[in-house]
């Protein structure tokens, strides 16, 4: 005969207490839960759903299986150039922004007089609206009449085509991103000023030189901030939209609203980024299904990059971090 374990019945009062406790917990969690559901879970599930649908925003969605996925990966002319450009910007722009931001932060923390002036000078560009900043850069780097090329030519240096030259368009965007380094500079300065002075004094007593002090004292102390800058930089660059679009439009000379259509990515699709293709498909071609495919690819890439960076963080963060 099988033995049965008899549990004493839980009292009604105890069950009610558990229920109240659960409801209280849910009540406190509800603002986040509502936000998570409305702004993350529902859109994500919908994106997956629409990626298998033919949907132009007018007629009801129609199931088309993998047609949108096949179109994006095999037939949509903008997808691979946009992905290559985005990955290029993630690799080069993020690395240079972190290095430059750290370099500027280091320099300003070392300056004895006028640090405030330099801090302001380097931070101000970050406050410029992206559209205005981009238009200014296109003007400054205009190959025909821009002051930068005028100076370069006057000293006998080669003057690039900048935003109008496929080989220089992404480096031009990178220069613009370096100009707006104020946010990273402030974060790095805060981290650098937080490094304990005693550690530098001890290192100096041991005969450490400048590079060794940076390598063995500064960097281990600021590595969590470096990781933060890299992760947020990668995510922001994956969503890079305004600057390349404005630069391409202004440099190409095509003015919207005149009846002329503008193909993003001028010159030669070198400034195309993945978010621009989402906009092109979803809002210009009325192809919501294919736009959702690209959005999911971007999501997966951002997740993968973040996961890799998080996994590797143990390699350059101390135990207490």
């Amino acid at each position: 005969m099988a033995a049965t374990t008899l549990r004493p019945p839980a009292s009604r009062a105890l069950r009610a207490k558990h229920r109240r406790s659960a409801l209280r917990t849910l009540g406190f969690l509800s603002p986040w839960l509502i936000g998570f559901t409305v702004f993350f879970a529902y859109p994500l599930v919908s994106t997956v759903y629409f990626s298998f649908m033919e949907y132009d925003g007018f007629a009801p969605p129609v199931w088309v299986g993998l047609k949108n996925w096949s179109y994006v990966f095999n037939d949509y002319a903008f997808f691979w150039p946009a992905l290559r450009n985005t990955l290029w910007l993630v690799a080069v722009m993020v690395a240079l922004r972190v290095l430059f931001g750290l370099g500027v932060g280091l320099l300003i923390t070392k300056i004895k007089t006028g640090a405030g002036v330099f801090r302001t000078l380097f931070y101000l560009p970050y406050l410029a609206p992206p559209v205005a900043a981009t238009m200014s850069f296109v003007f400054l780097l205009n190959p025909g009449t821009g002051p930068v090329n005028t100076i370069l030519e006057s000293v006998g240096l080669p003057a690039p085509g900048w935003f109008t030259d496929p080989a220089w368009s992404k480096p031009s965007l990178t220069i613009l991103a370096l100009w707006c380094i104020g946010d990273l500079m402030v974060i790095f300065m805060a981290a650098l000023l937080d490094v304990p002075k005693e550690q530098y004094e001890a290192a100096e007593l041991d005969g450490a030189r400048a590079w060794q002090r940076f390598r063995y004292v500064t960097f281990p102390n600021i590595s969590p901030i470096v990781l933060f800058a890299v992760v947020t930089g990668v995510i922001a660059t994956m969503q890079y939209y305004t600057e390349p679009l404005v630069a391409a439009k202004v440099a190409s000379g095509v003015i919207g609203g005149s009846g002329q259509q503008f193909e993003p990515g001028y010159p030669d699709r070198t400034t195309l980024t993945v978010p621009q293709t989402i906009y092109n498909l979803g809002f210009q071609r009325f192809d919501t299904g294919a736009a959702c495919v690209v959005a999911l690819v971007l999501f997966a890439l951002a997740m993968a990059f973040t996961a890799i960076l998080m996994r590797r963080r143990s390699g350059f963060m101390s135990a207490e971090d």
Partner: protein
Amino acid sequence: MPRNRRTKGAALAATAATAAISLLATACTGSAESGATDDPNAKTTLTFWHGWSAPGEVAAIEANIDSFEKKHPNIKVKVVKGITDDKLNQALRAGGSNAPDVVSSFTTDNVGRFCSTDALADLKPFLEKSKIDPARTFLPQMAKYTEHEGKRCAVPLLGDAYGLYYNKKAFAEAGITAPPKTLSEFDKVAEKLTKSKGDSYRQLGFMPNFQGYETTFEHYASQFGVRYFDAEGRSALAGDPAAKALFTWQKNLADRLGGYKKLEKFRTGLGDEWGPKHPFHTGQVAMQLDGEWRGKMAQDADLDFEIGAAPFPVPDDRAADYGKGYLSGTILGIAGVSRKQNAAWELVKYLSTDTDAVVSFANAIHNVPSTIAALKSPKLNNDPLYRTFVDIAQHPKSSHAPSSVNGGAFLLTAQDLGVRYEAGREKDLDAGLKETDAQVDKDNEQAR
């Protein structure tokens, strides 16, 4: 470690925002309903979106709206100016109380997309009810570019004709007595008018580059008689000698005038197309492919030289077609999501077919009228410069590119090849044309 899990969760949320944001705008959509049931005699307010933004243009359209309201006292019109196609596309899908009932767009190329998606309502029942035959009311070419595969979802609201403007002073200095009629004559004139200055130009005869404001593939194509699609609707550029001739001529001219690089560097330093510092106004460029509006803009800019206008030259083997040009214009339609389509039709009908309304608006903004009656009106502007474009508009061989289910995407794909070819980045034109055809077909297949 709990901290790690929290960090991962935060990273997940941050990265997922990408997908969330990209979809949010598509989460709320309207749906078009067929069949209008509203009473056009009931008191109502219509919302009309248009793209004009210059003060004179806005005043002209508002004067027309005032006349309409006087004739239809039960209908008030709320006018929203300066609307771009991107805004229009989203509003037509979203619907809602602030969505437009009547819309206009400068991008004639989008008619195919508007019609095939029901973004704009089918106007056939309205036209039949009002006993208006588009073929007898509008210029044939304009009637053609406002429908797609037999479905009429738009009507023309004035048109644009493209021709050649030339600087008479520069012509006289170079000893040129008449505007060129064939492209071989045109090339010689352009070269003759070009004066270099270092690695730039003191005066350029003509800016042939595809990014040179109005020198687009589509605008050249009408002169060459390019056949875009075959009978089955497949892209037919590779098999069309006219398309190859266009790209070859354009690149040869660019090379003769100094080469793509030199021209492109010069182009990037030129003034805004819609401002007073337009290179044709400043004398930097002696000939310009442009629409009829340029004449008025040049007058307003108070130039210190006289300008002339003529049809844009044609290829030598098509000399008999001289006089034709590229046509486009503003299109007018009723939003598919509108609940006031009968009242909206009254406004559309008035703006697009009332002869006085069409003529006064054409005169005010220096556009070409789109109705046959307005073109014959004695009240129409008599300025010879303007009349050149009125004649181009009425030439039987003037044309617009065909409508496509994917809007104007096929034109951008073709122009993309043109930019690569003129820059020397595409060496094999035949292969490029085949690739362009394949790409256009893939995009159209996806859009169907």
